[in-house]
């Protein structure tokens, strides 16, 4: 059975939520609400987690890695360079002075944290993303979109569910 995409647009989060709940509770052949459904919205809406089901966010693991690496690398490199270049002694100060090294370690800890967090964001969010098969500019304006991947046979079922909840527009991919 070939898969096709359908995009339904709704006026607000409540209607979209109702649709998603119904989709999750109904048995539809070739469709798993957890995997084949994407909610697109113009603003973030943490409550989406509640009706979509919890999905983990891994960005902060990247943060931990980046920050610790940044700090460690900075301290090692800086003290290493100071220790190896004892020909440039500064009178009255030790060769590897801890306070300045800590200041720079702190800065690089933050640098590493920020850079790797953003890298993690790009990886976890899948950006840059290939554009979806179906998209409506209204999603970036004021409507909520539900994009589903479904078998041809179940398309009609889904269409009914969508229309039942006052979908403003339903887009369908032309049959392959």
């Amino acid at each position: 059975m070939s898969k096709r995409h359908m995009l339904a647009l709704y006026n607000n989060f409540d209607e979209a939520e109702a649709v998603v709940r119904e989709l999750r509770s109904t048995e539809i052949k070739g469709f798993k609400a957890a995997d084949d459904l994407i909610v697109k919205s113009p603003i973030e809406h943490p409550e989406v987690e509640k009706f979509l089901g919890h999905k983990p966010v891994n960005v902060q693991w990247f943060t931990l890695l980046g920050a610790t690496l940044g700090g460690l690398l900075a301290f090692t490199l800086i003290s290493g360079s100071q220790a190896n270049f004892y020909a440039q002694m500064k009178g009255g100060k030790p060769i590897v002075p801890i306070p300045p090294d800590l200041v720079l370690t702190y800065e690089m800890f933050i640098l590493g944290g920020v850079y790797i967090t953003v890298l993690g964001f790009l990886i976890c969010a899948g950006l840059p993303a290939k554009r979806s098969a179906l998209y409506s500019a209204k999603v970036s304006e004021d409507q909520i979109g539900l994009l589903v991947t479904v078998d041809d046979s179940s398309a009609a079922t889904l269409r009914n569910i969508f229309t039942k909840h006052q979908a403003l527009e339903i887009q369908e991919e032309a049959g392959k």
Partner: protein
Amino acid sequence: MSVSNLLENWSKFRHNHPVEDKGHPDWQAYPSEIKWAMAIDLDACTGCNACSVACYAENNLPVVGKEKYSHGQAMHWMRIERYWDEDNREFPDQGAQFLPMLCQQCEAAPCETVCPVGATNHTEDGLNSQIYNRCIGSRYCSANCPYKVRYFNWYDYPSTENVWPAPMEQQLNPDLTVRGKGVMEKCTFCKQRTYTARNNAKTEGRKIHDGDVQTACQQACPTNAISFGNLFDPESRVAKQWEQQQVELIKAEQEKDVKPGNNLRGYRIFEELRPYPSVMYLERVRENGV
């Protein structure tokens, strides 16, 4: 430059100036049994400026001209400062005092820690070094110097007119560079002379004797007010003077200053700021002090 070298020799390298021990690193060419220091007798000083001129000649200092001098952009590594005692005396000129001020070669120099590129450091023979080709001209070292004895090349003097008008460029010292614009410079205790003296001593397999090397200012002074030498050599004139005056290099406050009834003339300027300067001044004997 390797980790193993570093670990083996850590105890030798890890020392601070000012050092209380004499266990200095045993560098190949220059064993650090040398600590260059100076003593300037202000009673003998007549303010004649011969030292300043000699320094100009020895170290390729540019003569900046009247206009730039009045803007405060002079390059005199050794400067004679004039102070006047205005106490309604009968002969006002007797109130003049002269202070030859030069880089104090501080053991814990405030300038060394703040250079962003590490152009100023402490050498193993106790001098504060300035590396011209590393300097990017941030001038933080001068900002931090309490004595303001660091001089910045505000213009490109080699290419400026009338700095060394012909045939004066013939007398430039080939032993050191002529600095271009944007670089900080200061007194080096005539590095080119001490370097040569140490080389000669090493070649001859002996230690440096007192008098082997004279700085240009010391050499030119008509009254022998300046004495220069190795502070770690007990036989040198400068070491004897420091000892007589009970001034110790590594103290921020000398014991003699704490005790009452101190008649000794020796002092260091801004000692309380703890840069541990290497230049000791001998206070002028005043009429009322005798």
